Structure formats: C-alpha cells, structure tokens
C-alpha cells in the first residue's frame, strides 16, 4: 500500500517527528512529503498522485484558526473537497483523500491520522488503477 501524507512544516511534519521521538508506531506504508504550508497543495498534485500509484492521500495542516500562514489550511480543505468530488465523479471513493488538522506538539494525533488512513486503506482496497494493470 502507498499512503502519501502531505504534511506542513509547522504542524504536520513537526507532529510526525514528535511521534517518532515518542516511539509511537505507525505503518511503514506511509510516505511523508513536507510542504511549507498545507495551502501549497493543489488539486492537480492530488489527482496526479493517484495516477502514479498512490492508494490513499492525506494532508495534515495546522489547527483551524492557527495556520502559521494565516489561512493556508482553509485553502487546503477546499482543494481536498474539490479533489474528492472529482474522484466521486470518476467512480473512485472520495474517502481515499482526507484533510486533517493538528498542532506541532500532538505526536499522538499524527499516529491517529496514520492509523485512520490505514484503516480506510484496508476497507477500500488498493487504487483501482493498480488492479486494472
């Protein structure tokens, strides 16, 4: 399984790092990509990721109202929603993508997110594209 997590430097990445320090276990299937801000993510990246073999995607940004770059996390949310509807229109399950909010000192929350995406992955199965090939 390939689960890509787009994590913002300020919150997502820091929390993931903290999870590691606290020896909280999460699946090695999760690959992290560090962004300056969740708002950097674009719909095109998300769609492309599926074509390149990702099974699940998530974006982890700062808590609502707390974005280090003001409202980047709001923009990320809207784009995730847009990507979800495109997936649904194409017959894929929108739950393959998700937006999460957390704070830099919430290593436990990062593990929760990772576990949730793994749970969904086993429920939804691999990317339908892979199956076709």
């Amino acid at each position, binding site marked *: 399984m390939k689960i890509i997590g787009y994590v913002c430097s300020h919150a997502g990445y820091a929390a993931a790092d903290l999870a590691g320090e606290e020896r909280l276990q999460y699946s090695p299937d999760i690959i992290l990509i560090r962004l300056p801000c969740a708002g950097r993510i674009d719909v095109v990246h998300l*769609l492309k990721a599926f*074509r390149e073999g990702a099974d699940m995607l998530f974006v982890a940004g700062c808590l609502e109202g707390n974005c280090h770059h003001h409202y980047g996390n709001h923009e990320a949310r809207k784009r995730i929603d*847009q990507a979800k509807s*495109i997936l649904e*229109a*194409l017959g894929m399950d929108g739950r393959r993508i998700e937006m999460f909010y957390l704070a830099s000192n919430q290593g436990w929350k990062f593990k929760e997110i990772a576990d949730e995406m793994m749970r969904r992955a086993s429920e939804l199965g691999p990317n339908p*594209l892979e199956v076709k090939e």
Partner: protein
Amino acid sequence: MIIGEQKPLQEICAMLEGHQRILVTGCRSCVAICLAGGEKEVGILAESLRLHSDLRGRNWEVTEFTTERQCEKEWVRELSDLVAKSDAVVSIACGVGAQTIQALFPEVRVLPGLNTSNMGAPEEPGVFMEKCGGCGDCVLHLTGGICPIVRCAKGMLNGPCGGSQNGKCEIGHDTPCAWEEIYHSLERLGRLDLLEELIPPKNWLPSRSGGPRRIIRPEAVLTREEKEMRG
C-alpha cells in the same frame, strides 16, 4: 465579463467516447476570472481526464494549452500544432472560443466543456452575478445604474411588480428585487422623478430577438485593396 461553469465531468467524459488524442484548452480571459476555464482549471481537467482514461483502460493522450483569448483568430492559431495531433478538442473557454476553434480547424471535433451562462461580475470571491442583459439599448441612466432587463426576473421597465417583498424577488433564492435596488439608487441620486416616467414598450430589435447581431466599425473595415496591401 462572460461567466460560465464547467460541464459535469461525467458529461465531458461521455462526449469524448470514441476519441483518443484529446486537447484540453482554456482561456486566460473571462473564464479564468470566474475560475472555470483558465490555465489552472485546464490542468485539473486534463489530469481528471487522464485519471478517467487510466481507470477505464482508454489509453487517452491528453494535451493542454491555454490561449490568451480564445475569441480571436490570431491567438487561436497558436493551437495549430497541438490540434494537428488531436482528434478532439475540449474547450473550457466560453462558447465563442469553442466556435472560433471549430471555425479555424474544421476537421477536428470541438466539444464544449463549459456551459456559458451570462455577462456579469464577481461580487465576492467565488460568487459571480449576472449584471448585463445585452439588450443593445442600454437604459442604465433611467434606472440608477441597475439593469432592469436581466436583474429583474420579469425584465420590467416600469417595475416593481406586486411580488417584491422585503427587497427580494418573488422567485426566491435570495434574489434581490432589482426595482427595489433601482428605487434606492435613484433616491440616493436625488432622481426619483425618473420613476414617475412611463417607459413605453421596448424595442427588442437590438437584442437577441432581432437575430444574430453584427456590429461594424466602419473606420476599421478594410477594403479589398487594403487587405491586399497588408498581405
């Protein structure tokens, strides 16, 4: 500006059945501003089509290009190379753009990816409102700068009708009553006297009712000789 909305993805995919080499093209003008057909939207649509193709084993080749404007031949000619390699073009520019491409490239099938809607303006981010009725005989000076043709659901010239209540139109959807707005605008301008005038039945010839409109600027029209001179 011209305001439109992309057709649902399913509809676009259905139109493309039977085609293989697809060019997605948008425009940097109006449709970019209403976030329907600009470069960004072209990118997202192209990627969505590729994903659709991969999911269903279609083997589509999808290319992208965003013209500066899609209503002028000079700009649309820039598509030549890509069109030559395509058997279908999906345009998410306005209906004018799609038609310009088809006229310039009669052999390739041009499909409208956009539902062109109206002439309007952005009200706030993400919200675009119809503003101009394109009637060809503007009466904004009589209505305090508010178009009664298209902002009044009944296109009245001696409004409001009896369904106007609390500043809203009877059709609902939180549509403002244009005539209430006109009243207040003329009040602020100190010109309520204009509302006492009986406006007679409108001449609709300059509007869509008179047939496809053609407007000529004689000072710019070239004679045959002039066309030859310019090569």
